[in-house]
């Protein structure tokens, strides 16, 4: 495992805590209280409700109520019925995350070190997608990738795509959409990490006869690790739960777990939907825990 240094390079500002050393903890609790209560009632408790819902007897109904019978079979049923969708979600999310790294890392690097006076403009362009509706943009992809769209036309002209080939309604379209949607969440943390990096360290690498590749591998990459970890998490986790791209850009054969959870909830099959939701959460938490440990950065928050 590569050694991961602290966030070096920045001169530590005087800790605000020192200035506040004289203050009592009590006011701190008071300020924290309203928000904490909100999160407790509407984020923490719901998680437990979800778990208990997943153990309800599935023979109940929304009209007559459900019984909590610790019906573990809900999980077995859910995983058996929706195994492929579950697998597909993580596969697509993984592909999209990898694509985001490939597209996003050089972009973040270019903004941090090569953009000069265009830095602010480039940053605005990175966040620009947030300025207009997510769904409207995804519909724009429908058009871009459509059979009559420009992308398909160009690819057909170069015979990359057969005459009857499609871009829309393929796994490719779904992954493209996911990549597009979550790219800013990759670029911004990476940029924040890279920007703190002292460029003199890179120069020093060159002065010591390291090739640019070695300098990148031994200096830039390890120092940008916190950004890379944060970026991959902020991309992978929402992508795994997303169903908008799969629905608008895919086909019934590209359905992800989010589609199934949403449909089961709309159909009122609460226990099964909850079991599926908890399964998704558990798999994600496990993957994230393993990943964060492997990447060696627990300094995320």
């Amino acid at each position, binding site marked *: 495992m590569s050694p991961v240094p602290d966030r070096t390079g920045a001169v530590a500002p005087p800790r605000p805590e020192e200035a506040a050393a004289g203050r009592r903890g009590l006011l*701190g609790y008071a300020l*924290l209280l309203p928000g904490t209560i909100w999160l407790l009632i509407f984020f923490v408790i719901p998680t437990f409700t979800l778990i208990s819902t997943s153990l309800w007897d599935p023979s109940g109904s929304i009209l007559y109520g459900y019984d909590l019978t610790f019906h573990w079979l809900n999980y077995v049923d859910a995983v058996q019925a929706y195994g492929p969708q579950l697998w597909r979600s993580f596969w697509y999310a993984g592909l999209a995350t990898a694509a985001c790294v490939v597209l996003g890392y*050089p972009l973040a690097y*270019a903004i941090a070190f090569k953009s000069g006076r265009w830095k602010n403009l480039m940053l605005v362009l990175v966040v620009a997608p947030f300025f207009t509706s997510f769904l*409207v943009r995804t519909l724009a992809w*429908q058009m871009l990738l459509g059979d009559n769209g420009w992308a398909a036309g160009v690819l057909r002209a170069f015979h990359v795509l057969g005459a009857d080939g499609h871009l829309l309604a393929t796994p490719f379209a779904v992954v493209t959409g996911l990549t597009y949607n979550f790219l800013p969440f990759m670029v911004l943390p990476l940029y924040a990490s890279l920007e703190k990096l002292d460029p003199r360290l890179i120069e020093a690498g060159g002065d010591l006869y390291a090739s640019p590749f070695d300098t990148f591998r031994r200096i830039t990459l390890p120092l940008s690790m916190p950004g890379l970890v944060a970026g991959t998490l902020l991309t992978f986790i929402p992508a795994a739960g997303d169903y908008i791209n799969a629905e608008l850009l895919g086909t019934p054969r590209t359905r992800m777990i989010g589609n199934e959870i949403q449909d089961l909830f709309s159909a009122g099959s609460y226990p099964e939907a909850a079991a599926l939701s908890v399964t998704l*959460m558990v798999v994600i938490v496990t993957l994230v825990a393993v990943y964060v440990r492997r990447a060696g950065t627990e300094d995320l928050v």
Partner: protein
Amino acid sequence: MSAGLTRARRWLGERLVLMYGILVLLYMALPILVVILMSFNEPASRQSYTFDGFTWNNWLDICGPYQLCSSVRTSLAIGLLATLVATILGTLMAFALVRHRFRGRSVANVALFLPMASPEVVMGSSLLALFVAAGFGGVLGFWTILTAHVMFCLSFVVVTVKARLSGLDPHLEQAAADLYANDWQTFWRVTFPLAFPGILSAALLSFSLSFDDFIITNLNAGQTVTFPMFVWGAAQRGIPPQINVIGTIMFLLALVLVGLGEFGRRRGAPGAAVAPGPARAES
């Protein structure tokens, strides 16, 4: 390898990264350009995905499609209220976390990351499970959406304001105290004005998150229709070009806000950080 060759490669390498970055930015801008273009489209049929002809009609008749404008109004109302509540609660929490030392502070820091790192479909379904279990299954609507939005905006507000606060020089507050300002005066005359740009960008971020949310909203909306839900419904039936007009208007408004923020910053206001992103990356 000769030094000249290495230098040539490095020269090319530097330009390559920048050019590659610009291409990626184009990829990110492409759908926005399509949205703007399609706002002038005169579609030949309801299921048209191509630009069939130029017209001003969509811009003249924005509210034409049934429910479109009422859904925008609903989203605006929810967005504004959710932003107000989340910004107040989140700012208080950020102050507590940066300025006060107490037991459980680091736990709170970690716990605040969780809502940001949970898949929306899990958060939305948990909340729905709570509402159903508590007997609110029949009254899903405006208020349940609002509650959900405040919940998921909170963490983002805390992180953004926290980033701003921890970057402030505490000596300024000490100076105020040295000059015989009491705590209250110090807060309102020194701390708050300095923290304000962070609070403002947190509010903007929270509004855009709320206005744009679909997955959590859709699970907890009942019969209420927000703008993203209208778009979702329209996507199944045939998309009215007016949704691209709304998309374009939102984009232009945001650009104007960023421009004003940048203008304010250049005028010497203390660092108005309008772009919400980098603050988020501090998490």
